[in-house]
């Protein structure tokens, strides 16, 4: 393997000079303006004045598998180990509006997350975990309104006051069309549902984030840091436009917007991207939407590090990779962080891998001192130069999405999907031909040893138990009340009313996720993706 010669570039193609100097900072007065003060627009240096001196980031490992009671056990374990909030992973049937008993759901029940079919399952999921004291993140999109309804019924049954509920509903359907692909309905009606959720939460749940606008999955699917940032901003613009068009005030809903980015191994570029993200959003909020409240211009984000950088080969190397990614998220000023387990290129993480991921966060937070001052890389000739270049290049891409008619139209035309697939292919070719060095994959390989890891395995009985539980639930409910509630839901959809009220009523009346989703499907239809070429 030869050392790379000639021009060097970052992951997203920004040329890197051998040396940066004060010249790269530009005019000192302008730099001061671009940076501002932490906690004040344009928030380049951080969303809060004191940052981690006041409070460490929220440590939130994404977790879920099997049935609600099994996941409840893992939640309790993570909290006992010092995790400070929860993050729920749902299985694919739950994400796609299918009950666990649906024949197409069968192979996938409880695999990549927990199976939730009814409000009772949500009650079980949080059994003994007080929702008015625990912030919960829900990675759920197409079925986000239904999951929110289940959550509110569970909170109600615990006696929790709605005004105290804190957490985040991902509810970002546009990035599902871009990357993660758990869409159900076509883009337009999907956007309506996003709007219904945000509208409802803005009025009813003052401490809850009703949307997390996410570049993470597009990045994981293959795009670069600049594209990730631009797509996130374009999606946020589309949501904000929809809500403003509904007559909501930007200053009222935007403070509860939350964001989600990847942090990969390209340390300085990632820190620069996260700083540029805050500055970009502050400008978009002010210039496009006329925000007047600083909170409405303040970008807060969650970072999920990056699973795509992990390798199945020499899996313990992933501990090192994850540590660097977590450091990047901290130096970039994250509000909450998930660190990947070292075995996630092979299976969902084992207890040992999850615990070490949490310990990684705790070590960075308590042993390294990186949290003792705000935005420690500010003023670095290199990092400031990267921040400026990323902002400028992301702006150009946002403009190209604008010219395509905005995020919804661009996605319908397949434009950003093309960016993602092309760049993913470029990355794999570079690993294949050795241009990119990946330790353990195309360099420093060692076939003589295989790591003796104990991987996580799903309990095969879990699915049967979940299906029996659902059948018993249906047999035990007042079927006519359920049907009446589903009828009201259908009527609300037809008459363009907000669906959240009827969904909560239906959840209370024992309707299943599959039943509610079917009503939505009957009215909205389903989406099938255009071919990749």
């Amino acid at each position, binding site marked *: 393997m030869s050392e790379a010669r000639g021009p060097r570039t970052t992951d997203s193609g920004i040329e890197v000079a051998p040396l940066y100097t004060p010249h790269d900072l530009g005019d000192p007065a302008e730099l001061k303006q671009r940076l501002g003060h932490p906690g004040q627009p344009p928030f380049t240096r951080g969303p809060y004045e004191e940052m981690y001196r006041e409070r460490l980031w929220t440590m939130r490992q994404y977790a879920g598998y099997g049935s609600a009671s099994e996941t409840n056990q893992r939640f309790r374990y993570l909290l006992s180990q010092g995790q400070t909030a929860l993050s729920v992973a749902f299985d*694919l049937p739950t994400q796609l509006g299918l009950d666990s008993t649906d024949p197409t759901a069968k*192979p996938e029940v409880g695999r990549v997350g927990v199976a939730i079919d009814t409000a009772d399952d949500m009650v079980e999921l949080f059994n003994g975990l007080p929702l008015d004291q625990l912030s919960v993140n829900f990675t759920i999109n197409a079925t986000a309104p239904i999951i929110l309804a289940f959550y509110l019924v569970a909170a109600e049954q615990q006696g929790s006051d709605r005004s105290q509920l804190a957490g985040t509903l991902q509810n970002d359907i546009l990035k599902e069309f871009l990357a993660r692909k758990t869409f159900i309905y076509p883009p337009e009606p999907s956007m309506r549902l996003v709007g219904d959720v945000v509208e409802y939460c803005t009025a009813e749940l003052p401490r809850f984030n009703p949307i997390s606008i996410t570049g993470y999955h597009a990045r994981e699917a293959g795009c670069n840091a600049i594209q990730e940032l631009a797509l996130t901003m374009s999606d946020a613009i589309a949501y904000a436009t929809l809500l403003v068009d509904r007559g909501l005030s930007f200053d009222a809903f935007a403070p509860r917007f939350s964001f989600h980015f990847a942090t990969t191994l390209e340390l300085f570029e990632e820190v620069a991207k996260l700083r540029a993200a805050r500055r970009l959003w502050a400008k978009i909020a002010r210039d496009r939407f006329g925000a007047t409240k600083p909170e409405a211009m303040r970008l807060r984000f969650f970072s999920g590090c990056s699973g795509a950088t992990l390798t199945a080969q020499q899996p313990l190397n992933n501990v090192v990779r994850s540590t660097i990614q977590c450091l990047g998220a901290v130096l970039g000023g994250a509000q909450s962080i998930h660190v990947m387990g070292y075995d996630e290129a092979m299976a*969902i993480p084992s207890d040992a891998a999850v615990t070490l991921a949490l310990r990684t966060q705790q070590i960075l937070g308590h042993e390294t001192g990186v949290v003792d001052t705000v935005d420690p890389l500010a003023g670095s000739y290199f990092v400031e130069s990267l921040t400026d270049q990323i902002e400028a290049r992301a702006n150009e891409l946002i403009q190209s999405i604008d010219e395509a008619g905005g995020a919804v139209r661009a996605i319908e035309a397949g434009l950003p999907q093309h960016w993602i697939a092309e760049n993913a292919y470029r990355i794999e070719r570079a690993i294949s031909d050795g241009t990119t060095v990946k330790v353990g994959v195309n360099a420093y390989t060692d076939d003589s040893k295989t790591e003796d890891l104990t*991987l996580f395995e799903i309990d095969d009985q879990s699915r049967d138990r979940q299906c029996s539980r659902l059948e018993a639930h249906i047999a035990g409910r007042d079927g006519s009340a359920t049907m009446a509630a589903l009828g009201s839901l259908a009527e609300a959809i037809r008459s363009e009313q907000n669906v959240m009220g009827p969904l909560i009523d239906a959840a209370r009346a024992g309707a299943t996720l599959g039943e509610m989703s079917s009503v939505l499907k009957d009215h909205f239809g389903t989406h099938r993706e255009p071919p990749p070429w």
Partner: protein
Amino acid sequence: MNKPVRVLIVKPGLDGHDRGAKVVAFALRDAGCEVIYLGLRSTAEEIMTAATQEDVDLIGASVLSGAHIELVSDLLTERSHHGLDNTPIVVGGIVPPGDVDRLLQLGVDDVFPAGTVLTDVVSRVMALADRSLR
């Protein structure tokens, strides 16, 4: 001149992680194959119907949800029903090391777990497809 190799790339099950499937589809196209990409959430029946109609030489299935054993078993059963037993099936995705042998024992022709280098995928697919063409 040889007839180009025809490959069907599919995503059975509910998993939407299509990065690997698309990257492999692009690479096989660049290697001269005619690639049919069937898209997400295809059932075993849809996949084998497409394989018959498109007269493909090989089927590549990508699964990252952990449901590979069940989904691939369904594919193999359906392949027999369609009389396509001579059409090789390869599987890629998040496959734990212990499951690679299980898939091969079930009757899959090759397995590419996450981390397989792209050129390796292409050459192994081409070798299998050539065999099935002969």
